[in-house]
């Protein structure tokens, strides 16, 4: 081993740095903190109960979201330490495996009275509250970009996207929101 050691202050760079919040009475668009995202890989044959996963989350409403048959995301605003992540992944065993996607997925919150209209410019999913109630989540295309959409409130959605596409999705959402940003 070399004697030379570099121990420098490490600063993570958010994917959406520089994307300032866009706010009007009609719409609000903001990048969420790059906290934690854990992809839970169960099996379609023996789905996990929500009760099994909820205790592993930070406890916020809608912290656990469905992501396809037997799969879930556990998300939260606080970044987990390496040890905390290890504990969660271990706790998922033996029924499920966990994959840390905290850096691989970026979350954007879109809210406001016009949020359904805005998102309808990108997704073919029917987002009416009666069809897509709070807590419902799905994977869909927003324009050309695949994203995971969760309803977190009557007029609020969280959109999770692959990090590499985050800037493009933000640009798209900003453009889709433009007409509602003129108060």
């Amino acid at each position, binding site marked *: *081993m*070399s004697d*030379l050691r570099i121990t420098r202050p*490490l600063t*993570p760079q958010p994917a959406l740095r520089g994307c300032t919040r866009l706010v009007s009475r009609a719409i609000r668009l903001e990048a969420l903190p790059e906290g934690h995202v854990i992809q839970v890989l169960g099996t379609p044959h023996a789905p996990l109960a929500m009760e099994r996963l909820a205790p592993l989350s930070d406890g916020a409403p809608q912290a656990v979201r469905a992501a396809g048959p037997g799969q879930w995301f556990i998300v939260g605003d606080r970044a987990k330490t390496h040890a905390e992540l290890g504990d969660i992944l271990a706790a998922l065993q033996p029924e499920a495996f966990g994959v*840390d996607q905290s850096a691989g997925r970026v979350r954007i919150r879109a809210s406001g009275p016009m949020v359904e209209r805005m998102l309808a*410019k990108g997704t073919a999913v029917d987002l009416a509250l009666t069809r897509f109630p709070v807590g419902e989540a799905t994977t869909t295309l927003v324009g050309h970009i695949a994203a995971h959409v969760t309803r977190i409130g009557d007029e609020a959605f969280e959109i999770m996207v692959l990090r590499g*596409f985050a800037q493009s999705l933000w640009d798209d959402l900003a453009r889709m929101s433009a007409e509602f940003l003129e108060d």
Partner: protein
Amino acid sequence: MTPYRLAAGGLIDRRAHLSFTFDGKPLTGYAGDSLASALLANGRLLVGRSFKYHRPRGILTAGAAEPNALMTIGRDGRTEANTRATMQELYDGLEARSQSRWPSLAFDIGALNGLLSPFLGAGFYYKTFMWPAPLWEKLYEPFIRKAAGLGTAAHVADPDAYEKCWAHCDLLVIGAGPAGLAAALTAGRAGARVILVDEHAAAGGTLLSETARIGGLPAPAFVAQTMAELEALENVTILLRTTAVGWYDGQVFGAVERVQKHVRVPAAARPVERLWRIVAQKALLATGAEERPLVFGGNDIPGVMMAGAMRTYLNRYGVAPGRQVAIFTSNDSGYALAADLEAQGIVPEIIVDSRADASPSYAGKARIVTGAVVSDAQGGKALSAITVLRNGQTETVKVDALAMAGGFSPIIHLACHRGGKPQWSDAQSAFLAPGDLVGLDLAGAVATTAGIAACLAEGARTATALLEQMSFNATPATFGTVEGDIVSAPNPVPARPLWTVPGVRGKAFVDFQNDVHRGDLDLAVQEGYGHVELAKRYTTNGMATDQGKLSNVNAIGLLAEARGISPADVGTTTFRPFYTPVSFGALAGPHHGHDFQPVRRSPLHDWARRLGATFVETGLWYRSSFFPRVGETSWRESVDREVLNVRAHAGLCDVSMLGKIEICGHDAAEFLNRVYSNAFLKLPVGKARYGLMLREDGMIYDDGTTSRLSENHYVMTTTTAYAAGVMNHLEYCAQVLWPDLDVRLASSTDQWAQMAIAGPKARLILQTIVNEDLSNDAFPFLAAREVSLFGRALHGRLFRISFSGELAYELAVPAGYGESVAEALMEAGAPHGIQPYGVEALGVLRIEKGHVTHNEINGTATAADLGFGKMVSTTKPDFIGKAMVGRPGLVDPERAQLVGVLPLDPTTSFRTGSHILAQGAAATLENDQGYVTSSAYSPHVGSTIGLALVTRGAERHGEAVMIWNGIRNEFTPGRLCDPVFVDPGNEKLHV
């Protein structure tokens, strides 16, 4: 001047003056006008020239089917050709220009074509320009192209925004006329999610042109009242200025909303047009009916107009069509117009009714001639007289306006968009929608229902039935008594169509837009093109922007009479989306220019940018191509430096975009053993292995390394190009082929910033940030483990793998830390000469080492072809590709095999794609022995080097060949060699 504005009446605001120009001349209209009504009110009868004969043309309709009044609106990037004046709302500052004329609308040189018309009939071009053949390309086609076309597009970019949007509803109502309004109200009150679309700026459809009273209110006031109730319902969405243009699979309807086509300067934050994709559980078509023209001589002279359109101009826009008006009708509807004209003080000069037995309930003053026809109209740029033919006797009547009422054709287009064929009904004298529609019903005039009261009732009733199918509790909306309904009898006898008007002398137009007249259809039948699809192509009837909305049914009737068969036997041409033309802007939406496709950014993108990287698009990724330095004059100079530096010192390359797939599960090892052709069952924890994936047909699919991070957890790397494909392939294998295996898959490509650190100094540099011992004993070639960095501040994954052939590692850290870590490595490596390198250098390094990529894994190469024969297990019970890998064609000794290529003279060069010829062989395809799959200048070798797939290449090392570039006719004498140009013994990998 004949048409003029009435002093009162109509739905226009006479206090709101709007200025506009037509062919540069300033004119004024009122708010509520269409461009067409404003032109008429200004006495502008002549508004365009016809396409082929350049005949003077006036406004024919008041709606979407307009074939004549096509104008160019706006200027520069907002130029919009072929705008229908009938559909264009007037706005202050509107600029309209007529088309198909030169030098001016009034004096048009092209009208000379009219003199040549005896020679310009259907099929003229086919017959005339057949010979001499060489002239077609050089003379005829350019000439015809110059003369052809409707309007001229601008050559500057459109400055406005376009948008696409989805919408969902229980019931979609298409058309806001009486049937549509009644349906929407019924559904809205029942609580269903309703979308009501109408192509006009104002809802109401024909009600806006009616003089009837509904429940005591004038029809337009009734519309306003109904719309107010609909607007107050939260579950009802009203989309005006929105044309439903297509019905597609999955109950998706396409519709185009003209959001800001009625304003001079659109607001920048909103689109000018919006393409809606409406998913409707059920849909109701309430699109009404199109009035048919009558085919008599000179029926295209300005001043001749559809009777229904004339009612609209009169009642809705307060524009009288002329002072001396005649009506030519084949049914009762013409008399409603007569009554309306008289109410405005214009007594028609004559009503010509083709029915000998006509008995209309008409109490007006106009002279009625039954059993008669208008055989010809006279006039040039304006109508002056008509010839009335009755019992062989002709009479000339001086008129300045003529209305024609040839009966109605239901607007069933959307009902036929999914393949259904219109059905001819003798009883209704009309083509009706297919009878077996699912998810779509019809109400109102589109279902041949006549009269306001009947349409209102049918709309409400049909909506109720559709709602009940969706388990809504609905009650049909009811409305007050309709006074002055246009239908007097409860069950009116439909008009008998009058296809062939007798005694015609002049040109009797069937298709106004394409200048197809009756003689053309007769000619088509005579010459054997009587089939409706052939007649369309032979005559061009029903083509271009209006797609035969006015002409198709008349053409079918005339073809039927010419062939002596029923219209049912003639049939229709195929109805396809779009119902009306859709702009490219609406179809493209926001996806053009910078937004054509999304960008996928590496977590090291900004780091590379700061170091001056030149980027290259690789799929959606932007990869650093090379890092030019001050003083370097060509990309080659930069790349050569980067390559030499890696071999001499060390380099850092962003490889984040390589696919990374987490493979978990208790059967993950078995899964990999079946997916790869080489053995994976016994790969130890902490080790990586190069794997080869075959397709079922035995060819190589993809390659990469897979590392075992723990007992039941692997991470696979794929090529950048195949990342998504391999993920899909693995999912398919796990879900479909072997559902019994416990395997779970997740893409983690975006989670990690991954960098290759390659070169003899790689270990020295890396060790400065990695806590674990990286000595060759502790972390040997193909080691793969989680490591801690910077004390224990960060954890990453470290793989000792090499694409360059040097001592090399790939370090993966959580993406957000990528830039910090890359900077730390550059800082630590500075004393050791580290430099960043891009994909160009990466490519050179791998060619020098003889590593293959998808240039070589080209879909026709087997493992053995590329020298990986030993990686195809002979002992495993099964793996994908095993069954086919031994077939004779894949073990043929003559197959092309991977080989290196060098030029004999190092100062000469060759290109990728060049072919290999045996020495002395003629340059023919028969002598082709393979081709260069990859090539680069190798600073290590000092010349161009290549990899090639050449017949029996593996046993021909040292053989002189000719490298032939057939496209550039270049010949480079060369020599086949070992494909590994650097460190063939792999000693560097193990230091």
